[in-house]
């Protein structure tokens, strides 16, 4: 069974309000969801609230997942990112999301033992791929994904034409895809 097949099964059980399926999904992706929440909010307490909101949304809206638009893991990440960006925007001036975009975090602890090896291998591979990108491509992708900036906001911030930002976005994603041909958790 591929991870995606397993996750689809868990999602069907979520739709039937099977709480143990939520626990299984959390055990598989809890660190990932929290990691994205922490990277965007850059505050532990906010990240916890955001992660909880995200998981509750997954629980309540499992039926809205559409397999044609990506893997279950990708959907979880999308939900976590949206909730985290909402949180940062509602906090307004206290903490700007774009400041978090370029920021590095030291992992507080490593992931749980059963998933640590696979996830750390995957991350090493992905980090290497990101390092291969042109710096401006990587910056545009991170400002978009973690900073929640629109393309025109990025253009203004980097003082570049909008068309350039659009091309960098596409080139960055294309290059990332070439470097990592297999989607994580597919």
């Amino acid at each position, binding site marked *: 069974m591929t991870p995606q097949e397993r996750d689809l099964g868990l999602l069907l059980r979520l739709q039937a309000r099977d709480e143990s399926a939520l626990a299984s999904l959390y055990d598989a992706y809890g*660190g990932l969801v929290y990691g994205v929440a922490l990277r965007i909010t850059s505050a532990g307490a906010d990240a916890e609230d955001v992660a909880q909101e995200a998981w509750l949304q997954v*629980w309540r809206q499992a039926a809205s997942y559409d397999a044609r638009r990506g893997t279950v893991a990708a959907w979880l990440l999308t939900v976590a990112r949206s909730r985290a960006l909402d949180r940062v925007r509602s906090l307004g001036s206290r903490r700007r999301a774009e400041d978090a975009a370029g920021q590095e975090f030291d992992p507080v602890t490593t992931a749980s033992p059963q998933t640590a090896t696979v996830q*750390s291998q995957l991350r090493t591979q992905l980090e290497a791929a990101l390092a291969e990108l042109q710096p401006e491509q990587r910056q545009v992708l991170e400002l978009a*994904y973690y900073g929640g900036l629109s393309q025109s906001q990025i253009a203004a911030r980097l003082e570049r034409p909008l068309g350039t930002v659009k091309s960098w976005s596409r080139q960055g994603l294309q290059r990332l895809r070439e470097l990592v041909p297999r*989607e994580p958790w597919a």
Partner: protein
Amino acid sequence: VTVHHDEHLDLCAGLALGNLDVGDRERLEAHLAGGCPKCEAALAEYTAAVTCLAAAAPAVEPPPALRERVLQAARESAATPAPRPAMPRPTSIDARRESRRGSTGWLWGRVAAAACLALALWSWRDAARLRSELRAQQTRIATLESQRADLEERLAAEKRWVSVVSAADARVAALAATPDGDPAVRARAIVDPHANRVVIAFSNLHVPTGRDYQLWAIRAGKPRSLGLVHADPAGDAVLQLELPDAASVQAIAVSLEPTGGAPTPDAPTGPVVMVGAIGG
């Protein structure tokens, strides 16, 4: 239908990143609405790349207490009046949609009635009392609004499944009981080979104690598990499943397995109790 330009691919990257400006997003959505295989393929690639980007974030072990908080919140959310039964009855999907709309209408009726009551109270209750009433109503409306949003999400999901049943080239299979099976069970599968989805409805399906029914897709003579079939106490079950490469599925079968199902997803261990070939 707008003609494909390479500029659309740039916009697809922005859509996958979720950061297109409004005008660009509307332009791309109008283009995609007309169907564009090039853009759809690119969008899938870019979406996968965005997942890679997210997965490169340092995985941080969440505080251990968070797991229990999440599960507790889910339990509490499940304890509030559930807008949907655990397993939908195999009434027609239209009927289910109708009943849901009905229950939302009822909820809004309650709000309206409560608002009238609040007005009637004006004549003899003091203002402080009325303010607290108002706060309670606002909370209730907020709750109802979130329930309504939930229902709309669900309805949108149901519509995607309705399209399976009404697809022009949907393939139908009536599952028949084998000599090992219970001839009282009725089951029908509808496969949409393009959307790669299948809807299967069972009635009179009663699971023997200590056993589970497991569903299988047969491709090139080989079974692949589609999961367990859980019927409600009346023996009814409707399953809506993603079925990768649906066009290659030759038959759908049900086997009787130990509780929890067969240990491996490609080998039924118990007797096959129902089977149906997928018609053209």
